[in-house]
């Protein structure tokens, strides 16, 4: 239920930015009382899933950085952010799993069974 969040956003929110996946980030419009910090929150694009938030915005959301990190140059070693895929068809399966051909390295106790005709 995000009706409450939508209402709060309309009432108090200030739009800060949008990531490449369409998630929108907000913070409180008003300066808070001394001793408190401005609340930050996200409105997800589609399904609510915390792992969809890329690291730049994750850092801002958790007050690690004051401003959202700007990624202007993509380094070759930087990988595309992936949400947690567990439970989906794209979930990670080790190479020995049947869904990936069931081929794995030899392990202790592996034996070759006899089959007729072999």
């Amino acid at each position, binding site marked *: 239920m995000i009706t409450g969040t939508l209402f709060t956003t309309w009432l108090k929110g200030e739009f800060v930015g949008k990531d490449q996946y369409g998630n929108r980030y907000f913070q409180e419009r008003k300066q808070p009382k001394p001793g408190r910090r401005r609340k930050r929150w996200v409105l997800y694009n589609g399904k609510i899933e915390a792992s969809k938030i890329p690291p730049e915005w994750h850092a801002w959301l958790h007050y690690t950085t004051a401003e959202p990190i700007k990624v202007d140059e993509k380094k070759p070693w930087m990988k595309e952010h992936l949400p947690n895929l567990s439970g989906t068809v794209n979930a990670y399966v080790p190479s020995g799993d049947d869904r990936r051909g069931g081929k794995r390295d030899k392990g*202790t106790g592996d034996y*070759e069974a*006899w089959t*007729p005709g072999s």
Partner: protein
Amino acid sequence: MPKLTIDGIEVEVEPGTTILQAAEQVGVEIPRFCYHERLSIAGNCRMCLVEVQPGPPKPAASCAMPVADGMTVKTNSPMAMKARKGVMEFLLINHPLDCPICDQGGECDLQDQAMAYGADTSRYAEAKRAVKDKYLGPLVATQMTRCIHCTRCIRFAQEVAGVPELGATGRGEHMEVTNYVEKALHSELSGNVVDLCPVGALTNKPYAFNARPWELKKTESVDVFDAVGSNIRVDSRGPQVMRVLPRVNDDVNEEWISDKTRQAVDGLLRQRLDRPYVRKDGKLKPATWKEAFEAIAAKLNGLSGDKIAAIAGDLADVESMAALKDLMTGLGSTSIDCRQDGMKVDPAVRASYLFNSTVAGIEEADALLIVGANPRWEAAVMNARIRKRYLMGGLKIGLIGQNVDLTYKVDHLGTGPATLQELVDGKHSFAEVLKGAKRPMIIVGTGALMRDDGFQVLGAARKLADAVGAVTEDWNGFNVLHTAAGRVGGLDVGFVPGEGGRDTHAIVEGAAKGDIEVVWLHHADEIAGERLGKAFVIYQGHHGDRGAHRADVILPGAAYTEKNATWVNTEGRVQRGRLAVFPPGEAREDWTIIRALSEVLGKTLPYNTLAQLRDRMTAANGVFGRIDEIVPAEWATFGDDTPLSADAKAFALPIENFYMTDSISRASLIMAECTDVYINGNDEKKTGTDD
């Protein structure tokens, strides 16, 4: 007898004992590398230095110094400790620091003794020497830089194995242990140098980098690759047997095992029967146990007992044969036989099929006649015993049969039964040798007994034994050398044709003609399938070998490492093998399969546990209650007294290839490689371009 004091303990020992042996008797341990109780004394590692008084004021090598009356030996005096520390430091100068990548790690004498007696640091900063690795064949890996020149391997090859192929070149720092040529070590016992080598210079090649000693589960068991019943330790990790090591038993294998025993276990991972199969529409189809049992029940339903037969093979354990015999009796069949090679012995006279002199007894013999056997291949460890006796001197050995190299000198008397007959008639000069001996021994091989005139050979050997006085109150020189681990057990449990029953030969013939409709092959793989005609074949076993291909129903059983079972070796020694790992997949321990089937057939066998079954075996034959004991067999007349014909054909040998004798070793890749190297003669080191 000399009396001496070792570390304050007074002890009286036999003259000629060395200080090290005397110390062992009182429980004082002296470190050593080159000394080994089953090899000659070399005295070249100097690790066993102790302080001896009276004598020169320097430490003495205790392994090579005989005791003298009034000696005082100190094994832990400052002088001895310092001497050891020094020796250790010298040894480590040229020993590489590669314990983390060395297969000996964790079971290395050098590692242990360096911890116990060595210094804590090294003062050596110069470069260490390096030695080129040698090629010793497919079973022994070498890292000769690690060698500490104890010469144990050289002495073993020379003395025990009888293949003087190893030696040393150079001296001092330039000494190298080598076989001079890049050829494999031609011995059936070569694997034992791995156990002897106190460091990681010689290691087990097939097992290389597979496991560390501390992750292995050790199970004490018995070997089944020949009929000697070598005592072994099965090292397993999880569901896999990683390696096999010898266990000391002075009465059987001392501390050696043959290469097949040690290395064929990789065959346990190949060609395994791990589920029942039933033949439907001419094709073997995977089935459940229930379906397999029902298929058998449907076939046996209403079939009269004389149309059913069972043959037990070389790897059948006593428990399952006892159960199968009971089941066959329940079905009304007496056509059972445990001699798939058709060897002729008298099941009623135990002495007629045992190695009566016992393996240890070989050392007491003073004349030996081998008839139709090649002990080097049929019982490699026993052959080492004969060689040991031969080296003691004063043993005359005669051989009738194929003239093979047995690693000791033999008089080749002849090749066939005619020579044996001459001996019986006293016309041959070797008869005098046997007669003159106090403890003559006659070894009859299966090769001489599995012929059509086998009973005559048996009778002739018996007559010869009687004639030369080989059987007395305390000595029985008549010996049958079996090749199969299951044979004596089968004979002892009575897995032989009962009244009106057929033996192997007649069963096969009957099946071909259609008189026998159901044949149960119990671990029997040496019967060619097409000879069984249209018979319905039930195969019980653990490997998809010859037997399985012809089968109509396959019942997957357990291999020797996978069951608690009883084995009887060729001497008649009852020994227990133990379960090290579980049988794969759906396979089960063999006797439980037969017990379960008996219920489906409505002939429920009266035992539910292994203990009950063993009680029953003991009730049937008392020897099964006497584990690891020799029960001397009653001497009687047996065999056929008809003289052997002069033109009977020469004795053939039962084993053509030492490395492949049964379903396990035939499935083993390492044994296949050994066959290529030793049997086919490709024993030169392969260069990189060869494969």
